[in-house]
Protein backbone atom coordinates (compact mmCIF):
# COMPACT_ATOMS: atom_id res chain seq x y z
CA UNK A 1 0.00 0.00 0.00
CA UNK A 2 1.61 3.24 -1.13
CA UNK A 3 0.49 6.88 -1.01
CA UNK A 4 -0.02 6.82 -4.77
CA UNK A 5 -1.95 3.53 -4.84
CA UNK A 6 -4.32 4.96 -2.22
CA UNK A 7 -4.53 8.32 -3.97
CA UNK A 8 -5.40 6.61 -7.23
CA UNK A 9 -8.39 5.06 -5.39
CA UNK A 10 -9.46 8.56 -4.33
CA UNK A 11 -8.11 8.28 -0.77
CA UNK A 12 -5.82 10.97 0.63
CA UNK A 13 -3.51 9.63 3.36
CA UNK A 14 -0.81 11.29 5.44
CA UNK A 15 2.64 9.71 5.04
CA UNK A 16 4.36 9.44 8.42
CA UNK A 17 7.60 7.92 9.69
CA UNK A 18 7.07 4.73 11.73
CA UNK A 19 10.17 5.50 13.84
CA UNK A 20 10.12 9.25 14.60
CA UNK A 21 6.52 10.03 13.53
CA UNK A 22 7.58 12.92 11.31
CA UNK A 23 5.08 13.69 8.54
CA UNK A 24 6.83 13.29 5.21
CA UNK A 25 5.81 15.51 2.30
CA UNK A 26 6.02 15.06 -0.61
CA UNK A 27 5.24 11.38 0.01
CA UNK A 28 8.22 9.08 0.17
CA UNK A 29 9.00 5.56 1.35
CA UNK A 30 11.64 6.83 3.76
CA UNK A 31 11.87 9.52 6.42
CA UNK A 32 14.10 12.48 5.45
CA UNK A 33 15.09 12.94 9.10
CA UNK A 34 15.80 9.47 10.57
CA UNK A 35 15.70 7.28 7.39
CA UNK A 36 12.89 5.19 8.92
CA UNK A 37 10.21 3.54 6.81
CA UNK A 38 7.00 5.53 6.34
CA UNK A 39 3.43 4.34 6.73
CA UNK A 40 0.11 5.98 5.86
CA UNK A 41 -2.24 7.58 8.33
CA UNK A 42 -5.83 7.28 7.13
CA UNK A 43 -8.77 9.47 7.98
CA UNK A 44 -10.52 12.70 7.12
CA UNK A 45 -8.06 15.51 7.53
CA UNK A 46 -8.75 19.19 7.94
CA UNK A 47 -6.57 21.72 6.17
CA UNK A 48 -6.29 25.49 6.26
CA UNK A 49 -6.30 27.76 3.19
CA UNK A 50 -3.03 29.70 3.05
CA UNK A 51 -3.58 31.55 -0.24
CA UNK A 52 -5.77 31.32 -3.32
CA UNK A 53 -6.39 32.75 -6.76
CA UNK A 54 -8.81 32.05 -9.59
CA UNK A 55 -8.64 30.82 -13.17
CA UNK A 56 -11.84 31.03 -15.21
CA UNK A 57 -14.58 29.75 -12.88
CA UNK A 58 -12.34 27.68 -10.60
CA UNK A 59 -10.40 28.76 -7.55
CA UNK A 60 -7.04 27.18 -6.77
CA UNK A 61 -5.83 27.26 -3.19
CA UNK A 62 -2.71 26.43 -1.28
CA UNK A 63 -3.94 24.29 1.60
CA UNK A 64 -1.90 23.30 4.65
CA UNK A 65 -2.39 20.17 6.80
CA UNK A 66 -0.73 19.57 10.17
CA UNK A 67 1.54 22.62 9.69
CA UNK A 68 3.66 20.57 7.32
CA UNK A 69 1.82 19.31 4.25
CA UNK A 70 1.03 21.95 1.67
CA UNK A 71 -0.66 21.26 -1.64
CA UNK A 72 -2.60 23.10 -4.30
CA UNK A 73 -6.25 22.12 -4.59
CA UNK A 74 -9.25 23.18 -6.62
CA UNK A 75 -12.28 24.78 -4.95
CA UNK A 76 -15.61 25.72 -6.48
CA UNK A 77 -16.94 28.23 -3.95
CA UNK A 78 -15.19 31.46 -2.99
CA UNK A 79 -12.38 30.56 -0.57
CA UNK A 80 -11.29 32.63 2.40
CA UNK A 81 -7.82 32.79 3.88
CA UNK A 82 -7.52 30.61 7.01
CA UNK A 83 -10.74 28.79 6.06
CA UNK A 84 -10.79 25.16 7.27
CA UNK A 85 -11.44 22.71 4.43
CA UNK A 86 -11.50 18.97 3.70
CA UNK A 87 -10.41 17.05 0.63
CA UNK A 88 -13.54 15.73 -1.06
CA UNK A 89 -12.01 14.44 -4.26
CA UNK A 90 -8.47 13.39 -5.16
CA UNK A 91 -6.64 11.08 -7.49
CA UNK A 92 -4.02 10.78 -10.19
CA UNK A 93 -4.62 11.82 -13.79
CA UNK A 94 -1.92 11.84 -16.47
CA UNK A 95 0.72 11.19 -13.77
CA UNK A 96 -0.36 14.35 -11.91
CA UNK A 97 -2.09 14.39 -8.53
CA UNK A 98 -5.32 16.34 -8.23
CA UNK A 99 -7.22 17.52 -5.19
CA UNK A 100 -10.56 19.24 -4.63
CA UNK A 101 -11.49 20.80 -1.29
CA UNK A 102 -14.69 22.17 0.20
Amino acid at each position, binding site marked *: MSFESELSKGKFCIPECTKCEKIIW*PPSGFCDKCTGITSLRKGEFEGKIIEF*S*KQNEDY*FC*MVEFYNSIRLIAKMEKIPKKDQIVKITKCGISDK*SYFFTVV
Partner: protein
Amino acid sequence: MSKVGIIAYGTTPFTREDHKIESILHKSTNDLFQNNPDMDKKEIDAVLVSTNNNSKYLSPVLSEMNGIQPKIAHSIESLCNSGTNSIVSAFSYISSGLADMVLVSGAERYDSPGQILEWDNSRGEFKHPIFWASLFSKSYKQKYKISNEQLSIVSVKNHKQAKENPNALSKKTYTSQDVLNSKKLTEDLRLLDCSRPCTGSASILLASEKVAKKNTDTPIWITGIGQKTTSAGFTKNMSLSSMESTKIAGESALKMSNRNISDVDVAEIHDAFSVCEPMALESLGFTNPGEGMDMINNLHETNNFKINPRGGLIGAGHPLGATGISQTIEIVQQLQNNAQKRQTDNAEIGLIHNMSAASTSSTVLVLEK
Protein backbone atom coordinates in the same frame (compact mmCIF):
# COMPACT_ATOMS: atom_id res chain seq x y z
CA MET B 1 41.58 31.28 -3.97
CA SER B 2 42.80 32.47 -7.35
CA LYS B 3 40.84 35.15 -9.21
CA VAL B 4 38.51 34.18 -12.04
CA GLY B 5 37.65 36.59 -14.84
CA ILE B 6 35.24 36.75 -17.74
CA ILE B 7 37.23 37.46 -20.89
CA ALA B 8 34.84 37.01 -23.83
CA TYR B 9 31.19 36.47 -24.71
CA GLY B 10 28.86 35.74 -27.58
CA THR B 11 25.12 35.55 -28.02
CA THR B 12 22.26 34.94 -30.42
CA PRO B 13 19.08 36.96 -30.72
CA PHE B 14 16.24 35.55 -28.57
CA THR B 15 13.38 34.53 -30.86
CA ARG B 16 10.41 32.18 -31.18
CA GLU B 17 12.11 30.45 -34.12
CA ASP B 18 12.50 26.70 -34.45
CA HIS B 19 16.19 25.78 -34.40
CA LYS B 20 18.06 22.69 -33.26
CA ILE B 21 19.65 23.10 -29.87
CA GLU B 22 23.07 22.18 -31.31
CA SER B 23 22.74 24.90 -33.96
CA ILE B 24 21.98 27.70 -31.53
CA LEU B 25 24.72 26.63 -29.13
CA HIS B 26 27.14 26.73 -32.03
CA LYS B 27 25.83 30.11 -33.15
CA SER B 28 26.57 31.84 -29.83
CA THR B 29 30.02 30.25 -29.46
CA ASN B 30 30.77 31.19 -33.06
CA ASP B 31 29.80 34.78 -32.22
CA LEU B 32 32.20 34.64 -29.25
CA PHE B 33 35.14 33.42 -31.34
CA GLN B 34 34.38 35.82 -34.20
CA ASN B 35 34.49 38.72 -31.75
CA ASN B 36 37.76 37.44 -30.25
CA PRO B 37 39.76 36.10 -33.20
CA ASP B 38 43.04 35.94 -31.23
CA MET B 39 41.64 33.58 -28.62
CA ASP B 40 43.48 30.24 -28.75
CA LYS B 41 40.89 27.44 -28.58
CA LYS B 42 43.63 25.00 -27.57
CA GLU B 43 43.79 26.75 -24.21
CA ILE B 44 40.18 25.80 -23.36
CA ASP B 45 40.32 23.12 -20.68
CA ALA B 46 36.59 22.67 -20.13
CA VAL B 47 33.35 23.11 -22.05
CA LEU B 48 30.16 23.28 -19.98
CA VAL B 49 26.70 23.34 -21.56
CA SER B 50 23.75 24.78 -19.66
CA THR B 51 20.36 23.58 -20.85
CA ASN B 52 17.14 21.80 -19.94
CA ASN B 53 16.96 20.31 -23.42
CA ASN B 54 16.88 16.53 -23.49
CA SER B 55 19.43 16.14 -26.31
CA LYS B 56 22.39 13.98 -25.40
CA TYR B 57 26.13 14.62 -25.09
CA LEU B 58 25.78 18.30 -25.92
CA SER B 59 29.08 19.43 -24.49
CA PRO B 60 31.23 17.02 -26.54
CA VAL B 61 29.03 17.82 -29.56
CA LEU B 62 29.58 21.57 -29.09
CA SER B 63 33.30 21.01 -28.53
CA GLU B 64 33.60 19.08 -31.77
CA MET B 65 31.62 21.70 -33.71
CA ASN B 66 34.07 24.35 -32.47
CA GLY B 67 37.24 22.26 -32.98
CA ILE B 68 37.93 22.07 -29.22
CA GLN B 69 39.25 18.99 -27.40
CA PRO B 70 38.71 19.88 -23.74
CA LYS B 71 39.77 17.88 -20.71
CA ILE B 72 36.36 18.38 -19.12
CA ALA B 73 33.05 18.36 -21.01
CA HIS B 74 29.57 17.96 -19.57
CA SER B 75 26.11 19.51 -19.30
CA ILE B 76 24.51 21.21 -16.30
CA GLU B 77 20.76 21.35 -15.67
CA SER B 78 19.02 23.17 -12.84
CA LEU B 79 15.88 24.55 -14.52
CA CYS B 80 15.96 28.35 -14.81
CA ASN B 81 19.25 28.95 -12.98
CA SER B 82 21.22 26.41 -15.01
CA GLY B 83 23.16 29.30 -16.56
CA THR B 84 24.64 30.81 -13.42
CA ASN B 85 25.08 27.34 -11.91
CA SER B 86 27.27 26.52 -14.91
CA ILE B 87 29.26 29.70 -14.32
CA VAL B 88 29.76 28.69 -10.69
CA SER B 89 31.01 25.27 -11.85
CA ALA B 90 33.41 26.94 -14.27
CA PHE B 91 34.61 29.21 -11.47
CA SER B 92 35.21 26.17 -9.28
CA TYR B 93 37.19 24.34 -11.96
CA ILE B 94 39.43 27.37 -12.43
CA SER B 95 39.87 28.37 -8.79
CA SER B 96 40.71 24.77 -7.87
CA GLY B 97 43.40 24.64 -10.55
CA LEU B 98 41.70 21.92 -12.60
CA ALA B 99 41.28 24.34 -15.51
CA ASP B 100 42.67 27.66 -16.68
CA MET B 101 40.07 28.48 -19.30
CA VAL B 102 36.43 27.33 -19.43
CA LEU B 103 33.80 27.91 -22.11
CA VAL B 104 30.26 28.07 -20.74
CA SER B 105 27.47 27.94 -23.26
CA GLY B 106 23.76 27.97 -22.49
CA ALA B 107 20.85 27.41 -24.82
CA GLU B 108 17.19 26.58 -24.89
CA ARG B 109 14.41 26.11 -27.40
CA TYR B 110 10.98 27.80 -27.15
CA ASP B 111 9.47 24.39 -26.34
CA SER B 112 11.83 23.56 -23.46
CA PRO B 113 10.78 20.68 -21.20
CA GLY B 114 12.25 22.70 -18.32
CA GLN B 115 9.21 24.94 -18.09
CA ILE B 116 7.26 22.49 -15.95
CA LEU B 117 8.65 20.50 -13.01
CA GLU B 118 6.67 17.26 -13.41
CA TRP B 119 8.02 15.87 -10.12
CA ASP B 120 6.31 18.51 -8.01
CA ASN B 121 3.00 16.76 -7.42
CA SER B 122 2.27 18.95 -4.42
CA ARG B 123 1.12 21.48 -7.01
CA GLY B 124 -1.68 19.08 -7.89
CA GLU B 125 -3.05 19.77 -11.36
CA PHE B 126 -1.68 23.33 -11.21
CA LYS B 127 1.85 22.60 -12.38
CA HIS B 128 2.36 25.42 -14.85
CA PRO B 129 4.47 28.30 -13.43
CA ILE B 130 1.55 30.74 -13.88
CA PHE B 131 -0.09 29.19 -10.82
CA TRP B 132 2.78 29.73 -8.37
CA ALA B 133 3.23 33.20 -9.87
CA SER B 134 -0.45 33.94 -9.25
CA LEU B 135 -0.19 32.88 -5.60
CA PHE B 136 2.98 34.98 -5.16
CA SER B 137 1.24 37.98 -6.77
CA LYS B 138 -1.90 37.64 -4.70
CA SER B 139 0.04 37.27 -1.47
CA TYR B 140 2.47 40.11 -2.23
CA LYS B 141 -0.22 42.54 -3.37
CA GLN B 142 -2.35 41.84 -0.34
CA LYS B 143 0.47 42.05 2.19
CA TYR B 144 1.87 45.34 0.91
CA LYS B 145 -1.34 46.84 -0.52
CA ILE B 146 -0.02 46.97 -4.09
CA SER B 147 -2.55 47.28 -6.92
CA ASN B 148 -2.39 45.50 -10.30
CA GLU B 149 -1.77 48.90 -11.86
CA GLN B 150 1.23 49.58 -9.62
CA LEU B 151 2.68 46.12 -10.32
CA SER B 152 2.24 46.58 -14.08
CA ILE B 153 5.10 49.11 -14.03
CA VAL B 154 7.58 46.22 -13.85
CA SER B 155 6.45 45.01 -17.27
CA VAL B 156 6.21 48.55 -18.69
CA LYS B 157 9.77 49.34 -17.52
CA ASN B 158 11.32 46.09 -18.67
CA HIS B 159 9.72 46.16 -22.13
CA LYS B 160 10.93 49.75 -22.49
CA GLN B 161 14.47 48.73 -21.59
CA ALA B 162 14.35 45.65 -23.85
CA LYS B 163 13.72 47.97 -26.79
CA GLU B 164 17.35 49.08 -26.44
CA ASN B 165 18.55 45.46 -26.47
CA PRO B 166 19.00 44.27 -30.07
CA ASN B 167 18.85 40.61 -29.00
CA ALA B 168 15.62 40.89 -26.97
CA LEU B 169 12.51 38.93 -27.87
CA SER B 170 10.23 41.91 -27.25
CA LYS B 171 10.40 44.77 -29.72
CA LYS B 172 7.45 46.74 -28.36
CA THR B 173 6.75 49.12 -25.54
CA TYR B 174 3.56 48.92 -23.52
CA THR B 175 1.57 51.18 -21.24
CA SER B 176 0.28 50.21 -17.86
CA GLN B 177 -3.18 49.94 -19.40
CA ASP B 178 -1.83 47.57 -22.10
CA VAL B 179 -0.50 45.29 -19.37
CA LEU B 180 -3.78 45.38 -17.43
CA ASN B 181 -5.76 44.73 -20.62
CA SER B 182 -3.56 41.89 -21.82
CA LYS B 183 -4.93 38.34 -21.67
CA LYS B 184 -6.09 37.41 -18.19
CA LEU B 185 -4.34 34.12 -17.38
CA THR B 186 -5.64 34.05 -13.81
CA GLU B 187 -7.31 36.55 -11.49
CA ASP B 188 -3.82 37.74 -10.45
CA LEU B 189 -1.76 37.42 -13.62
CA ARG B 190 -1.92 38.98 -17.10
CA LEU B 191 -0.01 37.78 -20.15
CA LEU B 192 2.29 40.82 -20.11
CA ASP B 193 3.23 40.05 -16.50
CA CYS B 194 5.01 36.92 -17.78
CA SER B 195 8.40 36.24 -19.32
CA ARG B 196 8.10 34.18 -22.50
CA PRO B 197 9.92 30.93 -23.27
CA CYS B 198 12.01 31.37 -26.39
CA THR B 199 14.89 30.09 -28.47
CA GLY B 200 18.31 31.54 -27.75
CA SER B 201 21.86 30.95 -26.68
CA ALA B 202 24.57 32.83 -24.79
CA SER B 203 28.20 31.89 -24.19
CA ILE B 204 31.05 33.21 -22.07
CA LEU B 205 34.69 32.38 -21.60
CA LEU B 206 36.15 32.37 -18.10
CA ALA B 207 39.84 32.24 -17.24
CA SER B 208 42.31 32.27 -14.38
CA GLU B 209 43.91 35.62 -13.57
CA LYS B 210 47.11 34.83 -15.46
CA VAL B 211 45.33 33.61 -18.59
CA ALA B 212 42.73 36.37 -18.42
CA LYS B 213 45.35 39.13 -18.36
CA LYS B 214 47.15 37.49 -21.26
CA ASN B 215 44.00 37.56 -23.39
CA THR B 216 42.29 40.86 -22.56
CA ASP B 217 42.89 44.27 -21.06
CA THR B 218 39.35 44.45 -19.67
CA PRO B 219 38.57 41.25 -17.77
CA ILE B 220 35.56 41.37 -15.45
CA TRP B 221 36.17 39.53 -12.20
CA ILE B 222 33.70 37.30 -10.39
CA THR B 223 34.19 38.47 -6.82
CA GLY B 224 31.14 37.02 -5.12
CA ILE B 225 29.10 33.84 -5.41
CA GLY B 226 26.11 32.82 -3.31
CA GLN B 227 23.81 29.87 -3.82
CA LYS B 228 20.97 28.40 -1.84
CA THR B 229 18.42 25.66 -2.49
CA THR B 230 15.62 25.50 0.08
CA SER B 231 13.55 22.77 -1.64
CA ALA B 232 12.39 21.52 -5.02
CA GLY B 233 8.67 21.78 -4.40
CA PHE B 234 6.93 25.15 -4.62
CA THR B 235 4.65 24.43 -1.67
CA LYS B 236 7.66 24.23 0.66
CA ASN B 237 8.00 28.03 0.33
CA MET B 238 6.96 29.21 3.77
CA SER B 239 6.56 32.82 2.62
CA LEU B 240 4.71 33.68 -0.58
CA SER B 241 5.75 37.33 -0.46
CA SER B 242 9.54 37.03 -0.11
CA MET B 243 12.30 34.78 -1.45
CA GLU B 244 14.21 32.90 1.21
CA SER B 245 16.76 31.27 -1.11
CA THR B 246 17.46 34.64 -2.76
CA LYS B 247 18.01 36.33 0.60
CA ILE B 248 20.55 33.69 1.67
CA ALA B 249 22.32 33.53 -1.71
CA GLY B 250 22.53 37.34 -1.87
CA GLU B 251 24.02 37.63 1.60
CA SER B 252 26.61 34.94 0.78
CA ALA B 253 27.63 36.58 -2.49
CA LEU B 254 28.01 40.03 -0.93
CA LYS B 255 29.97 38.60 2.01
CA MET B 256 32.36 36.81 -0.35
CA SER B 257 32.91 39.99 -2.36
CA ASN B 258 33.23 42.05 0.82
CA ARG B 259 30.58 44.44 -0.51
CA ASN B 260 27.24 45.84 0.64
CA ILE B 261 24.12 45.89 -1.50
CA SER B 262 24.39 49.69 -1.59
CA ASP B 263 27.69 49.28 -3.47
CA VAL B 264 25.92 47.63 -6.42
CA ASP B 265 25.60 49.98 -9.41
CA VAL B 266 23.69 47.73 -11.79
CA ALA B 267 21.82 44.44 -11.44
CA GLU B 268 20.11 41.75 -13.46
CA ILE B 269 17.10 40.41 -11.54
CA HIS B 270 15.17 37.21 -12.33
CA ASP B 271 11.78 38.73 -13.21
CA ALA B 272 10.16 35.53 -14.48
CA PHE B 273 6.89 37.29 -13.60
CA SER B 274 6.25 40.93 -12.64
CA VAL B 275 5.94 40.23 -8.93
CA CYS B 276 9.35 38.52 -8.85
CA GLU B 277 11.18 41.82 -9.42
CA PRO B 278 10.05 43.69 -6.26
CA MET B 279 10.21 40.47 -4.24
CA ALA B 280 13.80 39.83 -5.34
CA LEU B 281 14.88 43.44 -4.81
CA GLU B 282 13.54 43.29 -1.26
CA SER B 283 15.03 39.87 -0.54
CA LEU B 284 18.42 41.01 -1.81
CA GLY B 285 18.24 44.06 0.46
CA PHE B 286 17.99 46.78 -2.20
CA THR B 287 14.92 48.01 -0.29
CA ASN B 288 12.98 47.26 2.86
CA PRO B 289 10.18 44.68 2.57
CA GLY B 290 7.21 46.14 0.73
CA GLU B 291 9.21 49.00 -0.83
CA GLY B 292 10.45 47.25 -3.98
CA MET B 293 7.79 48.89 -6.16
CA ASP B 294 8.80 52.36 -4.91
CA MET B 295 12.33 51.72 -6.19
CA ILE B 296 11.05 50.32 -9.51
CA ASN B 297 8.71 53.27 -10.01
CA ASN B 298 11.44 55.73 -9.29
CA LEU B 299 13.84 54.04 -11.73
CA HIS B 300 11.14 53.96 -14.42
CA GLU B 301 10.17 57.59 -13.99
CA THR B 302 13.79 58.77 -14.14
CA ASN B 303 14.60 56.41 -17.05
CA ASN B 304 17.35 54.84 -14.93
CA PHE B 305 18.37 51.40 -16.28
CA LYS B 306 20.01 50.24 -13.03
CA ILE B 307 17.72 47.19 -12.66
CA ASN B 308 17.40 44.80 -15.61
CA PRO B 309 19.00 47.02 -18.26
CA ARG B 310 18.65 44.37 -21.00
CA GLY B 311 14.89 44.23 -20.29
CA GLY B 312 14.84 41.43 -17.77
CA LEU B 313 13.30 38.09 -18.58
CA ILE B 314 9.98 39.81 -19.30
CA GLY B 315 11.46 41.97 -22.06
CA ALA B 316 14.44 39.96 -23.26
CA GLY B 317 12.72 36.55 -23.21
CA HIS B 318 13.56 33.50 -21.14
CA PRO B 319 15.48 30.72 -22.87
CA LEU B 320 16.01 28.90 -19.56
CA GLY B 321 19.55 27.52 -19.95
CA ALA B 322 20.81 30.72 -21.57
CA THR B 323 19.18 33.23 -19.23
CA GLY B 324 21.77 33.30 -16.42
CA ILE B 325 24.58 33.59 -18.97
CA SER B 326 22.81 36.35 -20.88
CA GLN B 327 22.26 38.22 -17.59
CA THR B 328 25.98 37.86 -16.86
CA ILE B 329 26.96 39.13 -20.31
CA GLU B 330 24.80 42.21 -19.73
CA ILE B 331 26.61 43.01 -16.49
CA VAL B 332 29.98 42.44 -18.18
CA GLN B 333 28.99 44.91 -20.92
CA GLN B 334 27.81 47.41 -18.32
CA LEU B 335 31.09 47.20 -16.37
CA GLN B 336 33.08 47.48 -19.57
CA ASN B 337 31.08 50.62 -20.43
CA ASN B 338 29.98 48.88 -23.58
CA ALA B 339 26.21 48.60 -23.18
CA GLN B 340 25.37 51.34 -25.70
CA LYS B 341 21.90 52.82 -25.17
CA ARG B 342 21.40 50.67 -22.06
CA GLN B 343 24.55 51.94 -20.35
CA THR B 344 24.17 52.98 -16.72
CA ASP B 345 26.38 55.70 -15.22
CA ASN B 346 29.64 54.79 -13.50
CA ALA B 347 29.02 51.06 -13.37
CA GLU B 348 31.82 49.54 -11.27
CA ILE B 349 30.04 46.74 -9.42
CA GLY B 350 27.27 44.55 -10.81
CA LEU B 351 25.04 41.80 -9.45
CA ILE B 352 23.21 38.91 -11.10
CA HIS B 353 20.22 37.17 -9.55
CA ASN B 354 19.07 33.96 -11.24
CA MET B 355 16.57 31.54 -9.69
CA SER B 356 14.61 28.37 -10.31
CA ALA B 357 11.16 26.96 -9.69
CA ALA B 358 9.39 29.65 -7.65
CA SER B 359 12.58 30.69 -5.90
CA THR B 360 13.22 27.27 -4.40
CA SER B 361 16.81 27.74 -5.61
CA SER B 362 18.78 30.95 -6.21
CA THR B 363 22.22 31.91 -7.45
CA VAL B 364 23.69 35.38 -6.98
CA LEU B 365 26.93 36.59 -8.54
CA VAL B 366 28.86 39.81 -7.91
CA LEU B 367 31.05 41.10 -10.75
CA GLU B 368 33.64 43.86 -10.67
CA LYS B 369 36.05 45.61 -12.98
